[in-house]
């Protein structure tokens, strides 16, 4: 029964420790380095302790100087192993007494107990003390004397012992040095902490009761929910058996080591929780959803000015096409207008303006920055500060190259505004043909008018047909229809150009969008996704650590 329970606990502890290891792995840069260091230390300690003898329970007698740790130690072990005295502080080195020596050596090594301070109870004490088998009792130096300021041995062992027995006495039971530094700090360690009110013989029974009640009150106020308080008197031996019974119970269950680690883990998890995302915080998306992708692409399109490029293309095509497919007569008429540029002797500017519209597309760096910023801001609500920064940095990881890459990529598809499609040339030729026809018609009509109607003379025989007055209406009709055809062609082709430009604009915008989307995917979304995944994994690990 116990073994099963222990195994289960062990497995539970194992998975929680694994999660902690994951946190240590993922945490740097995102969590308080001190906590991570502590977590790393806890991992090391847990690994060590779980590797070492699980049959032994390390019990540390801790307390202030003069509370009677050594006396109690001797009293429990039944031997005068640790020197006691009236000088303060008495014990400077930790003494250890082991019940059941096999397998305890490495554990004692790990605890860094000096050889000459190790004692085995196996031989000397095998008289009915088998219930304490597996107990390693440590008599710590004090933690509150002037010596302890420079000596952290007690501190170290209090942190690693499986079970800590606080030896208090009526005079010192409320000392800040014990309570503030240890009891409050280790408030969640109820299961692996015992409080002993030693020197009970100094008090009258009713005083003792008051004292115990006061101590219990104090401990509860400090967060120790179920304090185990044993009153003893090391000098008279009263109550020592009770303590032994409590110890024997703990030792027999063989769970103190794991409980201690669990308590440590709980405490660390609580502290980590302060910097980690709250449990009920809105969970950020595992990856960036489509809406955000579209939002980013839109923003980047704006940064590149995709709609403006399209519009410019459309407009410029429209204007430009007029030179090719428009009605030549209006063009010629416009040329007659006085040109301000020419009057300013800036005629070459015209060519320059033409050259200016040679298509190139580029991205505006500041707008790219803002687009990325907006994406990151939208994602990180509810995240802890450090992770917000992390996501933002991930989003920005390649923002320096992004404008350049965008510009290069899009220039490939940028419309060259000064190109001239073949059909424009054809139409131009057609228009000129029509102009020729018009001119010819006008000449014919003139000829017919002159010779046929006015009888100005005789045309040579071959050309006599041109001089017939009867052809005049027909010629006139032809001239008019040629003009009309020119106008019609101009209007129609203009419409075709505009329509084509609109189509091309659509196509162009789609193409640019696609390319921008692809670039954003690779240079922004992917790093952010990675960071989000890291964050979510961290969260999951936090949950597992909390158990």
């Amino acid at each position: 029964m116990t073994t099963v329970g222990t195994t289960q606990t062990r497995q539970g502890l194992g998975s929680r420790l694994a999660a902690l290891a994951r946190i240590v792995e993922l945490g740097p840069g995102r969590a308080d380095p001190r906590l991570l260091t502590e977590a790393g230390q806890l991992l090391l300690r847990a690994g060590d302790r779980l590797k070492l003898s699980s049959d032994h329970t390390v019990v540390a007698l801790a307390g202030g100087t003069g509370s009677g740790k050594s006396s109690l130690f001797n009293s429990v072990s039944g031997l005068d192993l640790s020197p006691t005295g009236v000088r303060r502080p008495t014990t400077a080195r930790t003494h250890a007494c082991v019940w059941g020596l096999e397998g305890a050596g490495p554990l004692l090594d790990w605890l860094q107990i000096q050889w000459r301070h190790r004692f085995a109870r196996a031989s000397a004490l095998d008289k009915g003390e088998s219930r304490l088998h597996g107990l390693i009792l440590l008599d710590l130096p004090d933690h509150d004397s002037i010596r302890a300021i420079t000596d952290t041995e007690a501190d170290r062992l209090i942190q690693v012992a499986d079970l800590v027995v606080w030896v208090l006495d009526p005079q010192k039971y409320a000392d800040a040095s014990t309570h503030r530094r240890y009891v409050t700090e280790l408030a969640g360690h109820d299961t692996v902490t015992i409080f002993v009110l030693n020197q009970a013989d100094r008090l009258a029974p009713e005083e003792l009761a008051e004292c115990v009640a006061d101590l219990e009150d104090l401990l509860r106020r400090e967060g120790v929910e179920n304090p185990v308080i044993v009153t003893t008197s090391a000098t008279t031996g009263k109550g020592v058996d009770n303590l032994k019974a409590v110890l024997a119970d703990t030792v027999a269950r063989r769970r103190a080591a794991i409980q201690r680690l669990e308590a440590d883990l709980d405490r660390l998890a609580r502290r980590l929780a302060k910097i980690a995302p709250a449990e009920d915080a809105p969970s950020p998306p595992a990856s960036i959803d489509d809406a955000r992708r579209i939002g980013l692409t839109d923003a980047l399109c704006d940064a590149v000015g995709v709609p403006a490029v399209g519009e410019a293309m459309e407009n410029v095509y429209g204007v430009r096409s007029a030179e090719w497919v428009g009605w030549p007569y209006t063009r010629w008429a416009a040329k007659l207008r006085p040109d301000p540029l020419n009057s300013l002797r800036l005629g070459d500017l015209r060519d320059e303006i033409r050259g200016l519209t040679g298509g190139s597309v580029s991205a505006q760096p500041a707008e790219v920055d803002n687009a990325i910023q907006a994406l990151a801001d939208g994602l990180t609500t509810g995240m802890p500060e450090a992770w917000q920064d992390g996501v933002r940095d991930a989003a920005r990881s390649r923002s320096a190259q992004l404008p350049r890459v965008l510009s290069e990529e899009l220039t490939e598809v940028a419309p060259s505004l000064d190109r001239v499609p073949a059909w424009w040339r054809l139409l131009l030729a057609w228009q000129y043909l029509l102009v020729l026809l018009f001119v010819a018609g006008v000449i014919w009509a003139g000829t017919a008018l002159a010779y046929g109607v006015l009888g100005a003379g005789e045309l040579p025989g071959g050309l006599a047909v041109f001089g017939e007055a009867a052809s005049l209406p027909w010629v006139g009709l032809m001239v008019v229809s040629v003009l009309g055809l020119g106008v019609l062609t101009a209007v129609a082709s203009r419409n075709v150009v505009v329509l084509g430009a609109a189509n091309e604009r659509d196509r162009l915008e789609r193409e640019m969008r696609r390319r921008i989307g692809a670039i954003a995917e690779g240079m922004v979304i992917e790093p952010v996704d990675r960071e989000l995944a890291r964050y979510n994994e961290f969260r999951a690990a936090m949950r597992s650590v909390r158990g």
Partner: protein
Amino acid sequence: MKSAANRPTRPGEDDPRLGEASGDASPDHPESPGEQTVAFRAIRDDDVVSFRTDDASAVGAEHGDENSAPDAGDGDPGDETAPADDATGTSSGEGDDGPAGDEVSPVASARDAEDGSEDAAPAPETADGSGDGTPEEAADADPGSADDAGDDDEDTGEDAGEDIGEDAEGEAAAADSGRPATDAHDAEAGDSEAGDAEAAAAGSAEDGEADPAEDGGGEDGNGPAEDGEDEAGTGDAAPGDRVRETPMPEEVSAALTGALAALRDSVADLAFGLDLPGAEEARRVQAEILAQLDDYVIPRVHMSTAPALIVVAGSTGAGKSTLLNTLANAKVSATGVRRPTTATPVLACHPDDYEWFAKGDLLGSLKRKKAPSHTSGLGELVLVATERLPQSVALLDTPDIDSVVEEHHEIARRMLDAADLWIFVTTAARYADAPAWRLLRLAKERGARLAIVLSRVPPRSREVVTKHFVRMLTEYGLGEVDRFVINESKVTDGMLPDDEVTELRLWLAELSVDDQRRTQAVQATLAGALDSFRTRVPALARHLEAQVAFRAELRGDVDAAYGRALAEIDEATRNGSLLRGEVLARWQDFAGSGDLMRTLHMRKPGRLSGKASQQGPERMGALKAAIRTGLESVVVSAAQRAAEETVTRWLNRPGAGEALTPAQTLGRPSDEFLRRAGRVVSAWQDHVVELIRTEGVTKRAVARLVSFDVESLALIFAVGLLGYGTAEVEVAGKNALPQRLLHALLGAESLRSIGAKARSDLRARIGMLFDDETARYVQALDGAGIPDESAATRLYQATYNLEVAR
């Protein structure tokens, strides 16, 4: 009236010397400090008496004369200082208003022996005093005051004279060392003819003194007086009296009081807003110094006659309350097994001193209580009177220094700061505790007078423990301190068996009787406290300076970040990066679709020119909007980076983070920023249009031919300015299209000036925008408290002044 009352004592001072001098018939006598002091007291009393019996006004007048006389005539330090002593003495003796009444009251109430002797003395003194000023008046006054003195002597002589006599005999040592002067008084008091004798003595003394004074031999006459005072400083008899009544000469005291008040003010004014490392400590030190000044130093300097306050401090469970109960022989302070036991300080004193402690300024900020209240012990002081304690020695039981209740430590520290002597109680189980030794170190640092009680020592290990403890103390440099060992014994009713504290009781009694020793102790502790200001206050000042410097650094961070942002914007508007994206496309649209050309109109209405000026207003609007958006985004992104950089810089400075908790909102531009940036940019655009309109003086040759559309030209100008880098005219640069156009239209000079104006205007507008942004950081800094830069200087100054005043 008060001043008059204060002053009368001066002549008194002079008088006593004379009187005694003459009385003893030994030239040295006048000089002896003891006599001086005694005489002062006597005078005071006498004055009082004379005030009462004789006509007060006359005396006052006399005094006034006297005062003016010695001051003016002598100008000697001896004289001056002496009166000062008196003045302080009286002032301390007096509680409130009427000097005479006040002076009388102490006489009547408390002091038996001393009063008696003093009473005896005063009469002659007053006489002397008047004598000093004007011999004739003195002569007149003499008999009157002599009578008074005589009366007094008789009155008090019965009570006091005998008492004194006994005291003097019984505690010869004390009397001797304490105040030799009393001997004289005793003797006088003892004599039934004391009054006469003194009167006579005084008379002669007056004569004697008056002569030199009148002769202008003030130097001679005072010379001895000075000596006497000097001696008083070192001599046995004088110091006791002097300290009790007149700790310091008047000017010095006034200066000292002033210096202390100044110090107090400048310390109180400090604010350590930024959570630099050490700020917490600095705040604590500040509170401590303030409390010590209020509770102890200032009252103590004012009223050195106060009984000595002995603070019993130590660990919880060390038996402080038990010790106090035992010494007081009453359950004045609660004891028990609960730790910590005492929450409210308990002051036990002799009934005679009770009034003083009840009303006094010492620990004045604590509310006096008859019994500990059950609600809270903060800010309260339980005051009990007990006959078992000797006079002039009050014991103060304090909360512990090391229990879980941390407020207790603060209270204990505060009590210790107000103590004249410390009794440090520790136990056999605790004597190696770290908090105990921290306290001892504190005592050593402060130069406080200390006695150590090692309590609860098991009798069988007494020797070992004591030896070890003493060795530790010796190693620590505290080997010379008075030590008492109390065995662990049965506590009944909160008290130890009385024989355990016999030694301690003797020590207290000695302290009570031996004024000199007590005074020395008091003075030493006071000096220690004043000494400690020498290091503690400058430490505060240094921390304040650090804060000021730190704040400047933080401020510098903000400026640097935003300065860089401004430079970035400058760069972005010069290097052509603005002519990208939408702006570029719109510009191409604008130019390519012919709108650019249509900006210009022929001035001469040609045949077809009328129609040609039609522009697509939507394209122009789009270009304008694009420029605005582009510029806006440059500004916003720069502001974003600046905000981030500022916060990063701040967070990289240890101590800034916590003080500036709203850093989250500081990490990005303010909510309004986007809108405001838009407004700024469009305002600038409007400004450019206005510039072109008003300053775009067209070349005359051009103006005849061509007119232009101002809005469009402003746009072209903006594109040229921001997109092509520079408004300077480039002759044939390919990119300089807008410039060439503008150049041709407006002329180089005008273009240059408009370009410079537009650019500086843009910079100014963005600068203002950023100023608003930086204001948030400054606000955050100010919210954390603005360290006053001059406060440090004031602190140094106050410390220096204090040193000078001492």
